């Protein structure tokens, strides 16, 4: 078994050697005369303002959370799509029924989050309601 992996190992070795030679060579041979403009992260363009490690608005996380659920749930339909053409006719009805029931659940939950305003970016329905409530008080 290990004999089959020898070419890969050689490839890894070659990659390491070539990289070392190129990077090491330029480091050894190249002249270094640093100026502020040269050490800047980008040679041209807008000068960076502040740290790159800013906090993201929480909307990103919320939308990502909603996305990942639907993303993964859709994967359940994958075996269905692969199989449904090859099924005998008497089995097809049952399988399509199951898939439909599943899709219905997905659609209900999608409509639920739509109506709840979870997908609105700026001013979700909940917030508007909250504001209205505060105004009334």
């Amino acid at each position, binding site marked *: 078994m290990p004999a089959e992996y020898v070419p890969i190992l050689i490839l890894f070795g070659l990659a390491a050697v070539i990289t070392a030679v190129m990077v090491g060579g330029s480091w050894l041979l190249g002249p270094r005369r640093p100026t502020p403009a040269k050490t800047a992260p980008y040679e041209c363009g807008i000068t960076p303002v502040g740290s790159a490690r800013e906090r993201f608005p929480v909307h990103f996380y919320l939308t990502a959370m909603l996305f990942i659920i639907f993303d*993964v*749930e859709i994967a359940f339909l994958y075996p269905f799509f692969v199989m449904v053409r090859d099924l005998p006719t008497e089995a097809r009805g049952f399988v399509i029924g199951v898939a439909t029931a599943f899709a219905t659940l997905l659609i209900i939950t999608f409509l639920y989050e739509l109506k709840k305003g979870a997908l609105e970016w700026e001013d979700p329905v909940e917030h508007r309601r909250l504001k209205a409530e505060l105004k009334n008080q």
Partner: protein
Amino acid sequence: MTAVPASAYLTLAAFLFAIGAAGVLIKRNPIVIFMCIELMLNAVNLTFLTFALHQPNLQAQVAGHVFVLFVIGVAAAEVAVGLGIIVVIFRLRETIDVDSVSLLRE
């Protein structure tokens, strides 16, 4: 070509599971703890798939594959609920370190 033996996959999965479990016990950041739990779930998936490879009949093989899909789905649902809780805590306290989450320890 000779196949990689099942025991190799199973050992790898067991190690991943152990790493995840150890991570849960020693890490402080809930998001990292949560990533460790995901690691454990993926170790389970690897175990399922390895065993599915060695099942004698098609039905048992497919069962293993379908279980993996279930586990992935459940993991996604867990992610959503867990991150939701973390976001709410962050809004309330501006920190999510588990050591500072200790109001209940009286």
